[in-house]
């Protein structure tokens, strides 16, 4: 969800661009971290864990913790918390270690 009204901050948004998440077309603002666009669209499960296949989501949001690894344009282990969104990005849930596509 986007914040509509904020007492202090004003959010200047860039261009709204399409991307796909597991094949589904969604929209987000160009240049914002991919996670912001995903969260806005209600997507919180980003990958599954290596051994027990448990769902994983965002934890640190500053590129340190590895919880948000996803496959972006075929590249696994992309930290979507610090990866800017580009038009046409193909974003996929990562299972286990992920593989190059």
């Amino acid at each position, binding site marked *: *969800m*986007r*914040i*509509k*009204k*904020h*007492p*202090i*901050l004003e*959010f200047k*948004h860039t261009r709204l661009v399409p991307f796909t998440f597991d094949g589904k077309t969604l929209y987000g*603002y160009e*240049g*914002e*971290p991919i*996670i*912001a666009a995903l*969260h*806005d669209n209600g997507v*919180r*499960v*980003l990958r599954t*864990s290596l051994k027990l296949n*448990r*769902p*994983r*989501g*965002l*934890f*640190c*949001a*500053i*590129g*340190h*913790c590895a919880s948000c690894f996803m496959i972006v344009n075929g590249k696994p282990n992309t930290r979507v*918390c*610090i990866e*800017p969104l580009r038009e046409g990005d193909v974003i996929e849930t990562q299972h286990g270690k992920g593989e190059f596509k």
Partner: protein
Amino acid sequence: MIEEIELLVIGGGPAGLTSALHAGRYGTETAIVDDAIRPGGQLIKQTHKFFGSKMEYAGTRGFQIAELLLKELSKFNNVKIYDRTTATGYYEDGVITCLRGEKYFKIKPKRVIIATGAFERMIPFVGNDLPGVYGAGAVQTVMNLYGVVPAKRALMVGAGNIGLIISYQLLQAGVEVVAIIEGMDKIGGYQVHSSKVRRMGVPILTRHTIIEAVGEREVEGAIISKIDENWRPIPGTEKRLDVDTICLAVGLSPTIDILRQAGAKIVYIPELGGDVAIRDEFMETTAKGIYVAGDTAGIEEASSAIIEGAIAGISAAKSLGKSIPDFEKQIAKLREELNNLRAGPFGEKIKQGLEKLSRFSI
């Protein structure tokens, strides 16, 4: 090709930017490496006004301080910023490797200031790996920087300043904060922050902990419990809260990976947040030519990070042979400012930690 430079600052937060500013002022050829989408460290998501004095931009909101520092830095031709760049390693020949997107490059600086900040701690409870369990700072980032809220109803774990401030900011963003729980028997943060959230009707439950995050694929609830003096949950006091988000504000630990690689001597000082580097009064570590500043040097506040950054920056410039008028006087003044910041009851822990640290001679 290896880029040779006088000073490399790793980390573009309050400590890193200030250190570059102070070194750059005396003509030091400086590069800053920062891994975020935009530099400024955690300042850029902080909407609260700062305390302290003019030197630490008191009365100014965090994100505005970042803007001021970056604007000031842009005036120096001898300081450049590699944004979206991760410093990946320190090698024995003094080379630091960096990664920007697909581009990998090497920098060999004469001096290094490590200002890599801190990372959020995790505590053990059932389901703590479920999506919807966040470091509180993560929620602050997506919310205040990008205007997205991940939650409708949140539980905050930890009533230190970070927990209190972010609870208030969640309310500002339209999120309901069901409760703030705190394991200690008193609120850890400043009263000004706790009063604000209390006025808005958020209960702060001390001597409580979280024992489970409920949900299959995502957080659907939280089970909290009272705890006894030994921090053990008291059976029968469990309560289920209907929340979709759990924020953990249970403390930070210094990010010291590069310091370790560089061979700086590290000691464990709980009062400073964990493992920290031994350093002298100029913030130089036992690894010659390598300085620390900010949360990397011990968990404190952005205000003190700014002052430590200034000390490290001026000292690094001085050791590079730059002519610095009133060097001793400047350092003395900065040290006095640090003492002032640590004068209150909240500085007590830091002072104890620093006292412990000082027993390890450099």
